[in-house]
């Protein structure tokens, strides 16, 4: 504290002086010369504000990620022998990893489009002057708030072999299904995923829908465009950036579905529910750094590629609207 105080009088007169200079110079040359120095000082201070966060991110995310890259190409941490892509190949040929990757991809490929389309439908429904709009919004958003751990019990009761879903099925004269221990497990987790994430996506779409300029829609109606044309050529175009964002967020959230599965079934669930996170967790248990690092890097690369592709498509379709 004291050294700050000691420093201040030194620096503050200088500011005063530059300010005075500014005032004097303003008549002749404009304020450029003085503000340059002040800018530089401000820049330095603004870096100071940035510092804690950047240091933390470097220490906890960026640097360790470098170490992860290093681990992924060496034999083991003690000998440190460079083995190139051996770890990647080993992980890639691992049966558990293949299973996990396949399940995760299958799940994301089904759940993400469903989440985007259904939430868009919900949003359009709520934007069409429906009564009790804000109440509905609250209802649809509430699953996002509720901790998964709290409702997992109810899911278990619902999807148990003698549970309510099967009773409903029996009403319709269908046989019982062992939801959590059969191929239908994927259906269950898609339902859980949608339940949790639709509200969030819906809010994003609602705000995008309400920000479409009204005059364009009116012109379209006057020129007798069909509702489908309005939706396809105008609304979708204007929402392209939101569409991109919702897709990316759904994708990321689809990786988080591990929570539901873990809370439902523990470390080793039914085969079709074995996700990448299970693989990671179980590898953590064995402390196999090379495997873990290689798997993490492979995931990171895949993520970057997917997000890059999404960005590029959005750029292609939405660029004429943006300006």
């Amino acid at each position, binding site marked *: 504290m004291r050294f700050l105080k000691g420093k201040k009088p030194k620096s503050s007169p200088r500011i005063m002086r530059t300010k005075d200079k500014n005032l004097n110079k303003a008549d002749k040359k404009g304020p450029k010369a003085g503000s340059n120095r002040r*800018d530089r000082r*401000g*820049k330095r*201070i*603004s870096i100071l*504000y*940035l510092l*804690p*966060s*950047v240091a*933390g*991110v470097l220490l*906890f*995310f*960026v*640097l360790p*990620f470098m170490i*992860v890259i290093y681990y992924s190409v060496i034999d083991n941490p003690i000998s440190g022998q460079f083995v190139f892509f051996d770890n990647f190949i080993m992980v890639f040929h691992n049966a558990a990893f293949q299973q996990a990757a396949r399940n995760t991809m299958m799940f994301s490929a089904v759940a993400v489009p469903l989440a985007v389309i259904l939430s868009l439908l*919900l949003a359009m*429904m709520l934007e*069409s002057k*429906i009564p*009790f709009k804000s109440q509905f919004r609250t*209802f*649809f958003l509430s*699953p*996002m*708030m*509720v*901790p*998964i*751990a*709290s*409702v997992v*019990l*109810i899911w*278990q*009761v619902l999807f*148990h072999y*003698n*549970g309510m879903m099967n009773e409903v099925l029996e009403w319709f004269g269908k046989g019982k299904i062992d939801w959590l221990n059969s191929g239908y497990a994927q259906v269950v987790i898609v339902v859980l995923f949608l*339940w949790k994430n639709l*509200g969030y996506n819906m809010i*994003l779409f609602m705000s995008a829908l309400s920000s479409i300029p009204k005059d364009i829609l009116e012109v379209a109606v006057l020129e007798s465009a069909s509702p489908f044309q309005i939706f396809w050529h105008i609304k979708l175009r204007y929402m392209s*950036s*939101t569409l991109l964002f919702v897709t990316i967020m759904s994708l*990321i959230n689809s*990786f*988080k579905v591990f*929570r539901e599965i873990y*809370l*439902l079934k523990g470390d080793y669930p039914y085969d079709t529910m074995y996700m990448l*996170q299970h693989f990671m*967790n179980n590898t953590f248990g064995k402390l196999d*750094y090379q495997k873990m*690092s290689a*798997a*993490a890097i492979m*995931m990171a690369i895949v*993520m970057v590629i997917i997000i890059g592709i999404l960005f590029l498509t959005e750029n292609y379709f939405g660029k004429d609207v943006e300006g």
Partner: protein
Amino acid sequence: MMLKRTRAAFDGVSEERWNKQIKRKKKIKHTRQIVRLSFATLFAACFAVLFLMPIVLTVTNSFMSASEISANYGQVFATSDTGGKVYISERVNLKFIPDMVSFSQYITVLFKSPEYLLKFWNSVILVVPIVIFQLLVAAGASFGFTRYRGRIKEIIFFVYIILMLMPYQVTLVPNYLVSEWLHILDTNWAIWLPGIFSPFAVYLLTKYMRRIPISVMEAAQIDGAGEWHIFSRICMPLCKGAMCSIAILIFIDYWNMVEQPLILLADSEKHPLSVFLSKINAGEIGLAFAVATIYMVPPILVFLYGEDYLVEGITYQGGIKG
């Protein structure tokens, strides 16, 4: 009026009849719209019921007595044989309303078995510092990103976005390595520190702060305000709403955490309730609903209090390029 009359004359219909036709058409359109709206409402209502059902069921079931729960749901959770002492029905009866409302579960949880409260307290202890300090760090960082934007800062910001978009599976490995290196594995610090420096809040707050007109800050600068004054007197008050919404988003996210404690905290004594709830054994299944309900209370209170903030926060998240 003029137009109408000429049109009516042109079609060879009298003005009266023309007006009537228009009225009828309007009426048809109106009824059609009402029908469509009521359909939409009905559909939305069905969806709403489906969405709310699990939550409502959890709450109502928490008021059942232990014997009623084990009778209804014993089958689901029975991992070991109870020896035929307790009645368990063949079917799993999902009930909306308990036969007899009793608070016995809550009394047991709150006064007789301290372990649940301990785990609840673990959750609080893990989440609250993350929310507070992540916001503090983010406030400074987003101010840094907003003032004097340059190429280097943009690149750093881009790295933040990439990090934010990475799933846990990727970031947990680095986190684990650092925690091990710093010898904070199995302590709360292993969860606090990565949480505090998570780029999520920085990203959101920066996006918000960049919307503040730059002239406001320049005006303050010309009036002689230093960077600290601009930060504390101008940016922070303007970002109050955004801070609230970000706090809510962080809170929900970490209140729900499962992955981090599973990997970073080997000692299950330190696990938050979100992980512990899944490990409740069959004998205490009666308590599970009450504990689940108690665990739901804080986020629901936050939600009811700050729904508008939450919606605003989600809205700001959208439009990643902005």
